[in-house]
């Protein structure tokens, strides 16, 4: 296995990985040929690392019958939408990494929407973090590297409908 192939496999397996300058270009080149792109993200220590995302126009179309994917159930999706609404304050910038929001604020914002508190906590602490969509630190919750990997077209669609994102107390 070549270094590039190894780095690419490790990047997929770890979701985020620090790439050396020597291999970064080669990995980006191979990823581009696969319809993907390298995205810079911050690891928990604050240093720069990378993750893989789909290039615009190359992402799979899960709505077609030929591509079956596992989807988030409504509660985690609602919890994610709330966290995006809370963390993504500057709508002109990229949603990642956004601003940290206290965990309890995110919970209360969802409870205010009528979601069961226990289910919200489970989604915020479990599925959304396992999927890399949220990251929890001492500061609170932030959007995760999987959000950073969203194609620009998806981000633009989210930006156009950003007003519908719940924002907790700010909604009131």
């Amino acid at each position, binding site marked *: 296995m070549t270094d590039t192939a190894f780095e690419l*496999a*490790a990047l*997929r*397996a*770890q*979701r985020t990985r620090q790439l050396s300058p020597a291999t970064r270009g080669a990995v980006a080149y191979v990823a581009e040929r696969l319809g993907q792109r390298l995205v810079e993200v911050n690891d928990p220590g604050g240093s720069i690392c990378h993750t893989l995302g789909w290039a615009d126009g190359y*992402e799979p179309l*899960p709505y077609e019958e030929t591509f079956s*994917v*596992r*989807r*988030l159930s*409504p509660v985690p*999706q*609602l919890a*994610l*939408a709330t966290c*995006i609404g809370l963390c993504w304050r500057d709508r002109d910038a990229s949603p990642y990494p956004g601003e940290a929001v206290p965990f309890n604020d995110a919970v209360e914002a969802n409870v205010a*929407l*009528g*979601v*069961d508190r226990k289910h919200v906590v489970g989604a915020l602490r479990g*599925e959304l973090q*396992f*999927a*890399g*969509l949220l990251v929890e630190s001492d500061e609170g919750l932030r959007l995760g590297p*999987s959000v950073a990997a*969203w194609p620009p077209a*998806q*981000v633009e*669609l*989210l930006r156009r*409908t950003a007003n*519908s*994102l*719940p924002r907790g107390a700010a909604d009131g």
Partner: protein
Amino acid sequence: MSDDIQLGLGFSGRERTPFLRRLSALVAPVASDAGAVIDDEEMLDVARAVCGAFSHQDAAGGLTRAQIAARVSGACPAEVLDARLNVFVRLGLLRSLMDKKHQQRYVLDPAGYVGVLVFDRIAHRGGIDELRALLDRTADAIRSKQGSVAEVADALESCRAGFAVYANRLQQLVADATLAELVAERGFDADDRLYQTAEELQTLVTDLYPELDTPAWKLVEEALRYVDAAEGLLQRVLSEGGLALNFDQLDPEEYLTAARGASLDELAVVAVDVVFDPATPWVDAGAIIETLEQYQPRRASRERPSDPPPSPDTDPIARIQTHAAGVAKRCALRADALLAGKPEVELTDALRAAGWPAAGHMLADILALDTAKEQPYRVRFSDALYVDAEAPLTYISPAVLCADRTAAVQPNAGDVPAVAQERAA
């Protein structure tokens, strides 16, 4: 001998499969030259088909070549079948029904049929079953004391030699063979039952032929060496195959057995070196927006329905009492009107003048007053009867209404006047 043959090529230059290599080795002791053995497994299928053609009762009278060809139809091309039949006839697998010239009917020699079975078993299992059978036959002979000391010694030596040959071969494979060769040879039996059988045989010999204890012990040593070598081969297959992630090394049945019988930790070892994508459920902006639009919070618990609006009616008992009092008052007023201040009055004329049904209503009201103890009004009827077929009242008894105001009983507060009850009835 050329290098090509040593590399596993057959006499025709085609590469021999492991099956054919065993087959060649099996036949080598009786082959007159190196080209005596087929180098195509399909040729053995032809032999099976020909044997199968003779496996029914109607073959008792022999079969012609045409009948054989018809029964093995599809097994091989006609010219190949003809060539094979010539070989079978020359080697005696097929014999003429009668030893005459131009005899066209053939019968199958049972030895040839058994030969096909033996080839299948030895070629696929490596012949270790023959060694097991030899051990069992030797043990039976010793138990029944059928053989002399020399014969038992020869049998023990044959068994030991068999184990030694197999053990040497396995040790050479474990040391030098490629993974593919090891997989092809993994039919060797690593079960230590062979070793146990050899041990039992040695115990038997020690008891019944103490002078043969030494060759019996050598047999046990060789059996142990064989089992160790077979286990070494399997270990190498599993370890190298596992590293290479070659899932073809085990049969589907073996995978099924592992899935049913192995522990979670044992099964997890299979994927220790496998790299997986992390679990990433699909979520995009469109899905989030759709969820926001469609989400409706579920009610956590049932709410008690709101109280019904208060009834516009007042107390129903009081309403009944008020209504009854009104009725009683109206009847009393009517009676007073009839009396016109007199203590009693003749009602007959008034009733006849009222007609029907007004006379009935009037009489019912006055009779209701008569039954009420608290009212002073009484009605008396005479025994006379006025009959007038033309008038609205065709017949009526003369009635007198009187009022005894001194004997009237004052009603208690809340009592429903009897006159009202009568009217209600």
